[in-house]
């Protein structure tokens, strides 16, 4: 390890020390800093000014660069996270390469945190010296240009996925909409009415579903699953698995004869297990695409064929037992993840019976009971004996807002849909008693509180503030033990049916895919956005955008907004002629490379590979994200990060530590 010589340099570095009013100057003697640095090797100009980021400050930089023929500048001011781009732009206007700009942080990391003026000034000088050593060795760099495939992939065909696909397609780009179930629609199509308008959910959704299926630029891939994604932003390669439907969707005319003869009866997932379907089935009448699907897992057997009745009766010859799973490969430039949610399992709530009691159901089951196309034809009947319940208890926060055992967060929509459920119940069973146990009633949206007030005042739903501690069954009746915290009394209510507002949780069966895509999730399995406040629909992974309940509990208008936002981000991405990739990557110097391949194992992006013929490492600079892990590992010094080489680091360390 040799001592770096103070580099003899032709570079003309300009130093601008900012006062930032008194934010810096009140503690750091900025004039002294500028004065001391005047004589530092490499510094051709050194000045201090009140507000470097102001217009006159910027102008001063531009003018000085031109006058003093500076080829590198250092702004000693606030954190680079604030104004790096601003100063880079100013320098660019003066004809300087943006990578010749250094920002020395002497505010957040000096004047704002230290009180001893002498020490703070000394530290500021050290910091600036370090940046000078870096600046005199900085190379001018050009961003790496990358082409963009102007095609999008949307994963998930619920309301968010559908809206996103429609928006991107309307922009003029082609979209692949992938949905693992036989039909798009997600959870929204299972709902009966939506709050607060009581719109029929299927009536407002089916037009969108049909539009998605007919849109010239949307390729609808239902009964498909995304297997893997490789590549990088603007240039993704996606492998999608086509699951065999055993029915040719183009031939099927929905006559339903196959269903009639199928001997296999299984619980119907669309109706939440409250009714049955056959192995060959149409998920629901408005399914898109409108075709039957043969569920091989529940069929008597296809190889060899054990039954064959459905094929026999199919006039259109649409049934084909020989269909196979197929992997298709597609190129896309941007991906929107809209994989939705699921409800917390009732099994976890042993105090409410686990899943023992047939008449204790969750919100989605109640939606199916309310639905005119549901298992009871829209008549509210309880699952156990089909009787019309004369007393229903609704329990909010089942599993939510529970820091002890279940989920600590609020599921956002339950207060509103419970009000809706109780209201609809009262409309259909006017002499019935509806009781809601709540902790709070959260009605933050437009016309939400008015809707809730209607429930209480017009529909006479009884709201009791308190948690339900236990639900037991005695004979045919359910007994709900709760408390009324406003009177301080224990409450025991006899009910024919209980509807639990179960917490919204991460979607089943998606975690694996997210891991493979390296999309980060939070501790609850919801997608992690780039910034919770300011970047709600972007992932930290470039090229991936997020929308809907996959991010966390929300209602339909929010999901639709996020979907449109994600689509707009795709629009941003695709509207660029080419993409720019940060050039501060780590290339491989083939003269120094010994071919040990250690750096290849270090890279999480697969940017490095071995050129077997020459025995040296080559780097795909587009994939390199510039973390530097390989640079630190290389034993030969062949991997040097652009503008943060070992030489630069040694020089900076030396300058910052030496007196």
């Amino acid at each position, binding site marked *: *390890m040799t001592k770096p010589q103070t580099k003899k340099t032709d570079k003309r570095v300009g130093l601008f020390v900012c006062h930032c009013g008194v934010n810096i100057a009140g503690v750091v003697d900025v004039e002294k800093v500028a004065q001391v640095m005047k004589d530092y090797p490499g510094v051709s100009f050194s000045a201090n000014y009140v507000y470097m980021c102001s217009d006159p400050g910027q102008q001063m930089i531009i003018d000085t660069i031109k006058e003093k023929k500076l080829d590198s500048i250092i702004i000693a001011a606030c954190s680079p996270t604030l104004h790096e781009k601003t100063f880079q732009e100013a320098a660019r206007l003066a004809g300087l390469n943006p990578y010749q700009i250094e920002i020395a*942080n002497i505010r957040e990391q000096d004047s704002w945190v230290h009180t001893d003026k002498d020490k703070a000034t000394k530290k500021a000088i050290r910091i600036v010296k370090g940046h000078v050593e870096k600046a005199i060795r900085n190379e001018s760099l050009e961003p790496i240009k990358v082409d963009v495939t102007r095609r999008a992939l949307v994963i998930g065909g619920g309301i968010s996925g559908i809206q996103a696909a429609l928006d991107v397609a309307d922009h003029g780009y082609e979209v692949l909409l992938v949905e693992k179930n036989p039909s798009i629609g997600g959870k929204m199509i299972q709902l009966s009415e939506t709050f607060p308008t009581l719109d029929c959910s299927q009536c407002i959704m089916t037009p969108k579903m049909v539009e998605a299926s007919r849109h010239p630029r949307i390729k609808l891939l239902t009964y498909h699953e995304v297997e893997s994604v490789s590549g990088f932003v603007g240039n993704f390669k996606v492998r999608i698995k086509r699951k065999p439907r055993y029915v040719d969707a183009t031939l099927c005319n929905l006559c339903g004869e196959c269903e009639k003869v199928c001997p296999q009866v299984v619980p119907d997932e669309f109706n939440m297990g409250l009714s049955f379907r056959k192995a060959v089935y149409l998920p629901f009448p408005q399914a898109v695409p409108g075709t039957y699907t043969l569920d091989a897992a529940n069929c008597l057997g296809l190889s060899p064929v054990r039954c064959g009745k459905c094929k026999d009766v199919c006039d259109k010859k649409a049934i084909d037992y020989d269909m196979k799973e197929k992997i298709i490969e597609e190129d896309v430039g941007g991906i929107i993840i809209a994989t939705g949610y699921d409800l917390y399992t009732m099994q976890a709530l042993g105090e409410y019976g686990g899943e023992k009691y047939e008449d204790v159901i969750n919100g989605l089951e109640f939606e199916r009971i309310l639905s005119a196309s549901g298992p009871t034809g829209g008549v509210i009947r309880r699952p156990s004996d089909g009787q019309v319940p004369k007393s229903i208890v609704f329990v909010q926060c089942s599993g939510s807002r529970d820091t002890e055992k279940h989920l600590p967060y609020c599921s956002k929509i339950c207060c509103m849909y419970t009000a809706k459920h109780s209201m609809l119940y009262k409309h259909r069973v006017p002499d019935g008693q509806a009781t809601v146990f709540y902790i709070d009633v959260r009605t933050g949206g437009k016309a939400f509180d008015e809707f809730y007030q209607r429930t209480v005042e017009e529909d006479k739903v009884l709201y009791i503030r308190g948690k339900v501690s236990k639900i037991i069954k005695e004979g045919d009746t359910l007994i709900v033990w709760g408390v009324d915290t406003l009177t301080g009394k224990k409450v025991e209510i006899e009910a024919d049916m209980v509807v639990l507002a179960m917490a919204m949780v991460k979607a089943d069966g998606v975690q694996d895919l997210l891991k493979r895509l390296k999309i980060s999730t939070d501790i609850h399995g919801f997608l992690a956005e780039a910034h919770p406040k300011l970047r709600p629909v972007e992932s930290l992974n470039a090229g991936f955008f997020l929308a809907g309940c996959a991010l966390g509990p929300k209602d339909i208008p929010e999901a639709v907004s996020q979907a449109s936002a994600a689509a707009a981000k795709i629009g941003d991405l695709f509207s660029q002629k080419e993409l720019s990739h940060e050039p501060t990557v780590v290339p491989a110097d083939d003269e120094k490379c010994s071919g040990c391949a250690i750096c290849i194992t270090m890279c999480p992006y697969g940017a490095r590979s071995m050129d077997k013929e020459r025995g040296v490492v080559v780097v795909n600079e587009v994939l390199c994200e510039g973390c530097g892990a390989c640079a630190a590992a290389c034993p030969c010094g062949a991997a040097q990060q652009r503008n943060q080489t070992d030489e630069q680091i040694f020089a*900076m360390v030396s300058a910052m530590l030496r007196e």
Partner: protein
Amino acid sequence: MYEPQIMSFLCKWCTSAAADLAGTSRIHYASNAVNLRVMCSSRVDPQHILYSFREGADGVFIGGCHPGDCHYVEGNYKTLRRIALFKKMLPELGIEPQRVRLEWISAAEGKKYAQVMDEFTEQIRALGPLNFNEKALKREEQKNE
């Protein structure tokens, strides 16, 4: 009066952001460290650390993201392994391993950053000056003469 001198390598995404947050929150702490911002804590080479000692640092601090949160997926795990092994080597070089500290500090933990800086400064103060450079430079000067 001996004042400990500390060289800090902070990862841009987490610890440097935490240091900025400490600044925005006006939390005061010891001024004994100078910060060098790297893209990822995994950029830090043991050579950089040894060089820091040679150039006068009495302690070296490395700040990275919490496990699982690395902007570059797994850089911090590499740092962890590297520093763990490196610290085992330090006694052989006559340097107390406590002079190197690796800490996970997220961008939201401004207060923690300040506390760690104060703590580490005191730890290094207690260990006393390293004076590594004196011996090394002396030997090099002797060689050059």
